[in-house]
């Protein structure tokens, strides 16, 4: 799976957690989940749980802490998909 493919799917995972749909449509690897997409920090946990189900992977707590922007989310997911 390419980074672009992961990003496309990641958009769907993130969608239920942001009211900023316009920003979501135009995300790139630098988009910050909390600052740009206004996602409640508590909901990051839900995004990680949904991503685990989506990609059938496990993301441990320490790694999850790094998932603050779209790029780092893709890093972690592509690492786990290997």
């Amino acid at each position, binding site marked *: 799976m390419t980074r672009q493919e992961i990003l496309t799917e990641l958009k769907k995972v993130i969608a239920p*957690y942001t*009211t900023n749909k316009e920003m979501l449509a135009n995300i790139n690897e630098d988009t910050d989940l909390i600052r740009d997409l206004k996602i409640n920090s508590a909901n990051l946990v839900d995004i990680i749980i949904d991503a685990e189900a989506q990609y059938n992977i496990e993301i441990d707590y320490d790694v999850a802490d790094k998932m603050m922007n779209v790029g780092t989310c893709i890093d972690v997911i592509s690492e786990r998909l290997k």
Partner: protein
Amino acid sequence: MSNRVVVTGMGVVSPNGIGLPAFLDAIQSGRSGIKFMPRYQELNFSCQLAGMPNFKWDSLSNYISDVTMHGLKGTNIGYGLVAALDAWADSGMGYDTDEPRWETGCVFGNSIADTEAMKNVIIRVDNKEAKKLGSRVVEQAMNSGVTSYISGRLGFGNKVLTNSAACATGTQAVLMGYEYIKHGYAKRMLVGSAEHVDTYVYGAFDSMRVLSRKFNDQPEKASRPMSATAGGFIPGSGAGALVLEDLDFALERKAKIYAEVLGGSTNSGGQRLGGTMTAANSTGVIRCINESLVSSGISAEQIDLISGHLTATNADKQEIQNWSKALNRKGTNFPMVNSLKSMIGHCLSAAGSIETVASVLQIVHQFVHPNLNFDDPNPEITDIISVNSIPVAMIKKEVNIVAKANFGFGDVNSCLILSKFN
């Protein structure tokens, strides 16, 4: 001079009507909201009926963001949000605000989180999958869940509290909000309560043998307060909410005023002198009613209508006896009395707030709603008060002052005195 407190907005999710227009029509025409529940039959419950609001979960998207909606499972929270936000809009105010509303607080009561929704939590934990629960469980399981959702949506910055006093919760919430404004701590309080009687809570009541079981084939006949065949209550669900305001504050913004809260009292019979966990100590009830009269500065003779607790159990007779003693009124001198539970069942924590909304509507529209199923008056009750005090059809009459009381497990009592705004 102490502040006067008025009602400027109301919202309701009731088994016989959601929203003020539907609810007003239902209580004027005496429409029952009690339904047969096939699932309760499958579960071998003795009582298989419930007062269940015809609530469309998707309608919540008119009140909260899709993000909040995603992952919201607590039915009690859904009911509470709709009643509270409807009351807020009815009071003429918008939902959105960037700044906290420092002058406005909230007292919203409930009994228990939606245990049916919590079942998923129990299963996951037992399956060693706690990691998958996510962030939205605690906020819905916590006792202050309903209050937190409401206060967050509207940005309340004053006192935000959750009260719980079993079946006295709703009237107690109104009273607490009234007191905060009266004492000058807040200018405006959104008050109310919510209840969702899920299957597990229902089952526990069923096992206590306090529910009606002889009318499963006639749901609308089953809730029979004050009748000889009153054989237990029908659990109900829903929510009621009111916006209370300091009078001057309300007048300043030209708010419409429905009624005035003159005063009230909440106490306990101490589970002594005949009071127990589940039964009211009559001395405590009578004190509560009398304290309400004193705090309101009215005499017992001024009460036009009693909105009773009157659940359709054998406690009805004792309740009427208590009112009669407290007010020193009997026979044909007894005020009108009605029980909304004859239409919607007993909504437990939500009973008091839904019944307070009904009481205010009866003041505003000058009527007394009917008592359904009072076909066979309990002679022990009509020995105390005239049968004419218990209307079976709507009566149009002058209603200036209503006493609204509820009594709950734990031997707790709450009584409110509501008045036409003069």
